[in-house]
């Protein structure tokens, strides 16, 4: 058999022939493979950079926000039209009687007039007038009836016996996947739209108690604050500056850049958010500088106070529009609307008799005992901006262009727009904290939930040590929020903070695409290579015959031409890598700076992060491509080569 060095010598010499055909083969195949390699380098680079940015953003915390799934009826919700069974009807009627008896007893105790008719009935006529077989309007449950809450409590007791989504359960299950820390973000007790944001320090009484708008930039306006552990939003909390040092009594708030702009741009002169990334960085930096330590005020009025103001406004209207003597007859106390910002309602005229006053005092005592008393509280709250964060990603999973993709990759996924960092908050004194009105309210939706909260059925944020462990927990124990109704698992979940699973998803998607594209590209390249290489081999029949005549065995011929095709493949590989690298570098030069800015904007922190590089070499992937090129080269020549060595050398020598 021919030696290896001789094989190389002959194969290399053979490369000298058919130069044009060979060049075309090498160039075309290299282009195809080069494009694949460019793609690989860029995708690897981007996903690595995304990971670096994410690591910085996450600070090693992979956060998952979970919500226990609670059936609607346990929370007191249900169908408005469904007719209850006769047994349920009987039971509900019993509860209603029981409730009335209790109330009657209480009323008697506090010497308050009691009329059982005034109690909302637990069963009412079908609001749509549906009739039963006898032509009577059917009855449905009145879920607003106070007695219905007793039934809900019964249901809750029953449900809690088998519920498997308490905080204890959560810790057990998440612990299996390596969860390290548990946080409980809590809504503030201010209540929705109860603490009105004072635009220019003024209160607009006509808008009191009404939500202003419901978009993602109206958290402060609607007083929807969330207490959050500072470590979850640490990267947005700005260092203390002079303004903050000067005022350490205000309630600290971290707000989105977009909401801050909406509220303060007139006041401090901030231009509109630019659309380009580089501009955004400058804009965000300016925003952080100007807003850090800025304070604003909000007027908290308790629901009782809001009701009184609304009542007074109505009174005034009646006063002006109707005969005043008639109006004054209707109410024995007349009120003044507040005259200065966030002042309480004052009494204008109290025309009650002593007996009436006693009756009102009795009523108040009775309401307090029955739990229906609404206190009248007014407090001026001062908040201070201590951090700015980028607006949460609103891309709803459609990533049409690179910027939205990057935002999706790195942008926050917070559902809450105005955070009160608890560590900063607790540094305030009790009065500064406004403890009487501003507390944690463990929020499970629904009203009568104290029992559930006591049993540990509460939302939580869990910190996992890795994306993989978080993902495992999410997949085994939770459903997506939107799948709640059909969920068979105990919790729904959402990622909290940057979307660290998206990189995963994207690399998987890219992997899927690669699985599709790579074979196609390989086939295209294989076709190009096999056409030309097969041609070369077929054209070497005469040479083969001469070699055979001079004593070459079949195996010798195989070796020479296989090594030859390996050499061609190596050439293709070298050019592919050159083209691939060139392509990647070009893309990096063209898009790198823009994407870096984009990523920084999405992340919201601009210093301390390097370039978002689009170049990354995955040795394994490139190895696979190199192997594929070799394989294609060899497979392309094998069939014609085998045909060649089987032929009669004499015949091939004659055909010239």
């Amino acid at each position, binding site marked *: *058999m*021919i*030696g290896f*060095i*001789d094989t190389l*010598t*002959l194969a290399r*010499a*053979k490369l*000298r*022939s058919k130069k044009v055909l060979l060049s075309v083969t090498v160039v075309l195949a290299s282009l195809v493979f080069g494009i694949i390699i460019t793609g690989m380098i860029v995708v690897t680079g981007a996903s690595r950079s995304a990971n670096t940015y994410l690591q910085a953003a996450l600070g090693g915390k992979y956060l998952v926000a979970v919500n226990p799934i609670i059936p609607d009826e346990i929370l007191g919700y249900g169908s408005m039209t469904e007719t209850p069974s006769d047994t349920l009807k009987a039971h509900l009627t019993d509860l209603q009687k029981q409730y009335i008896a209790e109330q009657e007893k209480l009323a008697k105790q506090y010497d308050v007039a009691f009329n059982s008719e005034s109690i909302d009935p637990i069963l009412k006529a079908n609001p749509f007038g549906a009739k039963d077989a006898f032509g009577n309007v059917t009855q449905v449950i009145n879920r607003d009836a106070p007695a219905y809450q007793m039934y809900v409590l019964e249901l809750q007791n029953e449900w809690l016996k088998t519920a498997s989504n308490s905080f204890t359960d959560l810790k057990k299950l998440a612990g299996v996947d390596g969860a390290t820390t548990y946080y409980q973000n809590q809504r503030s007790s201010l209540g929705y739209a109860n603490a009105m944001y004072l635009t220019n320090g003024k209160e607009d009484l006509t808008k009191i108690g009404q939500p202003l708008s419901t978009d993602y930039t109206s958290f402060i306006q609607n007083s929807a604050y969330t207490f959050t552990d500072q470590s979850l939003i640490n990267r947005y909390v700005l260092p203390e500056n002079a303004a903050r040092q000067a005022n350490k009594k205000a309630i600290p708030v971290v707000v989105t850049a977009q909401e801050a702009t909406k509220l303060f741009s007139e006041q401090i002169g901030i231009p509109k958010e630019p659309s380009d990334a580089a501009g955004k960085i400058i804009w965000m930096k300016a925003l952080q500088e100007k807003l850090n330590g800025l304070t604003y005020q909000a007027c908290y009025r308790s629901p009782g106070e809001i009701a009184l103001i609304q009542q007074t406004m109505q009174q005034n209207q009646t006063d002006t529009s109707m005969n005043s003597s008639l109006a004054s007859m209707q109410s024995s106390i007349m009120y003044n609307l507040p005259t200065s910002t966030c002042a309480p309602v004052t009494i204008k005229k109290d025309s009650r008799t002593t007996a009436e006053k006693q009756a009102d005092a009795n009523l108040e005592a009775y309401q307090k005992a029955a739990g229906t008393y609404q206190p009248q509280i007014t407090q001026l709250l001062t908040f201070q901006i201590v951090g700015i964060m980028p607006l949460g990603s609103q891309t709803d999973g459609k990533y049409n262009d690179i910027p939205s993709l990057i935002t999706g990759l790195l942008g926050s996924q917070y559902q809450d727009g105005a955070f009160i960092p608890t560590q900063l908050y607790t540094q305030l004194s009790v009065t500064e904290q406004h403890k009487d009105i501003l507390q944690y309210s463990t929020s499970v939706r629904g009203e009568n939930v104290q029992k559930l909260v006591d049993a540990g059925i509460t939302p939580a944020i869990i910190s996992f040590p890795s994306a993989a462990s978080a993902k495992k927990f999410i997949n085994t124990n939770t459903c997506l929020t939107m799948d709640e109704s059909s969920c068979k698992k105990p919790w729904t979940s959402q990622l909290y903070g940057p979307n660290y699973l998206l990189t995963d998803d994207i690399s998987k998607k890219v992997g899927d695409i690669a699985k599709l594209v790579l074979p196609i590209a390989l086939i295209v390249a294989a076709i190009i290579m096999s056409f030309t290489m097969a041609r070369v081999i077929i054209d070497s029949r*005469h*040479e083969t015959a*001469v*070699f*055979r*005549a*001079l*004593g*070459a*065995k*079949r*195996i*010798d011929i195989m070796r020479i031409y296989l090594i030859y095709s390996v050499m061609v493949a190596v050439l293709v590989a070298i050019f592919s890598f050159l083209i691939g690298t060139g392509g990647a570098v070009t893309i990096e030069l063209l898009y790198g700076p823009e994407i870096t800015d984009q990523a920084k904007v999405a992340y919201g922190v601009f210093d301390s992060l390097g370039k978002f590089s689009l170049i990354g070499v995955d040795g394994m992937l490139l190895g696979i491509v190199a192997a594929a090129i070799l394989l294609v080269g060899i497979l392309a020549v094998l069939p014609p080569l085998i045909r060649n060595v089987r032929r*009669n*050398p*004499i015949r091939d*020598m004659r055909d*010239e």
Partner: protein
Amino acid sequence: MTPKATPEQIDAYLALFANNPYNAMVAIKEHVQRRSAVTSESISAPSHSETAIITAQSLTKTYKLGRQRIQALHDVSFTIYDGEFVALTGASGSGKSTLLQLIGGLDKPTSGEIIVNDTNLNHLPDAKLSTFRNKTIGFIFQFFYLQPFLRLSKNIEVPSMFAHTKRSIRRLHVKELIERVGLAQQAPQLPKQLSGGQIQRAAIARALMNNPKILLADEPTGNLDSTNSRAIIELFKQIRAEFGMTIVLVTHNPEIAALADREIQLKDGTLI
């Protein structure tokens, strides 16, 4: 008897001076010089032995060309002896090349036996047949058939590649042969840069590369002008004188035929 520089002998030199490769080289060089001193004038044609080296028995070769059958050889029998120089003559299409190919193990007869060097070629498997062509036969084709992509020296070296000859020996031998056929200057050139006569001489050198027992030449002067033909004839004379190998040479040229010990004549595929 003229000294022959077979690879085996060079091997022996190398083995002898195994501890001192320089001395081995000197020895081989002396050997080569001794041989170069031999001229055709000083040597008369040696007479051949009585040992049969090629025996053909009732050789028949039929080619199929589509439906057509062409009988290139019909019942050809003869014996050629070791060291004999045979001229194979006959009109165009009489079957000379076909016969040469059968002797050289390039093709198999349709019927009949061909025994070369005590081996019945009909019974050799493909790989053994390759070795036979490589080691026993030196073939000079009618149309030379140098590999177009190989430099002249490499073209000459090819048979030794398949024989797995030691590289040092090979190089010496190639050099020697190139000088012998007067192509030292052309060694690094590709075939397309050579003249017809030069190509023919290179083809002869290649045929001698593995020191074959039998040299088969198919009209080595057929495509050459008279000057070149003369040079080739001169070369064959020397080869014959120097190596004393068995030569079967196809020719139309009576001058060359006259050089041979014997002439075998073909007519329409049969001996006359």
